[in-house]
């Protein structure tokens, strides 16, 4: 539930940016001085994002209290930091790196929640010490760099070229990592599934990226963000998060090499 809520929060954040609504509520933590602002235009997206953020904060706190794991407390701390960073983006307005940092920290929060979920999944089968598969870890790191470049494009801090060039690098690294797992552990269903999931999401992401870019060019002269551009871009953000989560899942599952199959 926490993982799904966090993914929904990432999608809500994508909707805010794609609808150009990031500064539609100029105050924080209240909205227009109230708990519930007038829900019109871009305010709807920004306020929904804030409500989901509050929900994820509460759910992550419950998860940390319930699981008592160090990783869950780290996730809670990251969610709180993310909320504060979001507030700073609104109240300080100017620094362009802040929305980029906000977008990147969102991915890290989602990654941490995925890591908690996958570790619990692994622990149910065989309790082993935390370790990470090097190939999967490389895929995680590469996809996170690609997240930073993508966020920089979305917030007009950098051009599209580095993001496109690194997309090729990220795809190759993910392919290498996924194929490594498939070649050596084809007979192990959790290993195989995690690798196939990562590869499928990454290939989908490449096409969604092309769609997002093309739709942005096609609608550049329109007076406002158009549904086709919003759909492609938000899907690109969401699948990007899922691919990053899948890479983390694969790194942990394969890292728990001695895990028995249920």
């Amino acid at each position: 539930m926490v993982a799904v809520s966090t993914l929904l929060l990432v999608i809500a954040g994508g909707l805010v940016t794609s609808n150009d609504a990031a500064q539609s509520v100029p105050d924080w933590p209240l909205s227009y001085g109230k708990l519930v602002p007038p829900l019109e235009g871009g305010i709807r997206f920004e306020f929904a994002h804030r409500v989901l953020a509050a929900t994820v904060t509460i759910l992550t706190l419950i998860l940390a209290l319930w699981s008592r794991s160090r990783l869950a407390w780290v996730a809670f701390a990251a969610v709180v930091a993310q909320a504060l960073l979001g507030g700073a983006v609104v109240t300080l307005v100017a620094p362009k790196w802040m929305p980029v940092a906000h977008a990147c920290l969102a991915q890290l929060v989602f990654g941490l929640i995925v890591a908690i979920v996958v570790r619990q999944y692994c622990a149910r089968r065989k309790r082993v010490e935390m370790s990470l598969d090097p190939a999967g870890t490389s895929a995680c790191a590469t996809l996170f760099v690609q997240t930073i470049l993508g966020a920089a494009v979305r917030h007009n801090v950098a051009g599209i070229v580095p993001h496109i060039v690194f997309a090729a690098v990220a795809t190759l690294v993910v392919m290498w990592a996924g194929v490594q797992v498939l070649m050596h552990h084809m007979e192990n269903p959790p290993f195989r599934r995690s690798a196939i999931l990562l590869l499928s999401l990454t290939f989908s992401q490449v096409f969604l990226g092309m769609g997002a870019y093309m739709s942005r060019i096609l609608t550049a002269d329109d007076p406002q963000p158009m549904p086709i551009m919003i759909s492609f871009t938000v899907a690109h953000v969401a699948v990007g998060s899922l691919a990053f989560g899948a890479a983390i899942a694969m790194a942990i599952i394969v890292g728990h090499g001695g895990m028995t199959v249920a």
Partner: protein
Amino acid sequence: MKKIWIGFGLACVLSLAGCGGGNPPETAKKAEPGAAPAGGGAAAMPDEANGATITGKVTFDGTKPKGKTIDMSANPVCTKAHATAPAMTEDVVVNDNGTLKYAFVWIKSGLPDQTWQVPTTAVTLDQNGCMYKPHVIGVMAGQQIDVKNSDPTNHNIHPQPQTNQEWNESQPPGSADKMQTFARQEVMIPVKCNIHPWMRSYIGVVSHPFFAVTGDDGTFTIKGLPPGTYTIEAWHEKYGTSDQTITVGAKDSKTQDFSFKG
């Protein structure tokens, strides 16, 4: 472990308190009406009796582009304001005589190094029918801009300058006008409303009084120029800039036309 988390909680609360504080942006502060120009010296006024006058028109060369209809369905109040005819984009407005509306013409260089008197009258930027009226305005650095909300709905005013301080403020329906200034010359500053993403306006901020915005006849007049050789520039939102060099003597009256290709 408990102590660590109590410390973390305290840090979060302190950070939260810090976000709401701070001083108002340096350049967004309210200017005193009729304030003396910076530097304290006597400020010059345009000498309309003995100075030169440049007149001209900004013409459009090409097939007249069709304006795009704006979809205001995100806010019923905005839709209602345009019940008789749909709102159209104002990025390119070609007048009936083939000239361009909303071109900003200004003396880019060549003026003597002196301080010019800032007009005490404010320039109005109204939010009316969920559109900025007018679409393009020009002000002197330090001159007040009177931001109005004539609509029965919320707006946020969000200028995005490069050299001046960025700011973002909400303006609920029926609220008092906001008086704002920009401290430094900047041509042009885009202004947007994040609640209604189709709302866009541009402000030309110049350190002297020799500028004009073309209207329904596409003409401009710049009066009271001291004798000299100047670079005069026409800026258009869609078609960019065009520079010309012109030399004027005392009491000269010269014509300088511009043409943009569509």
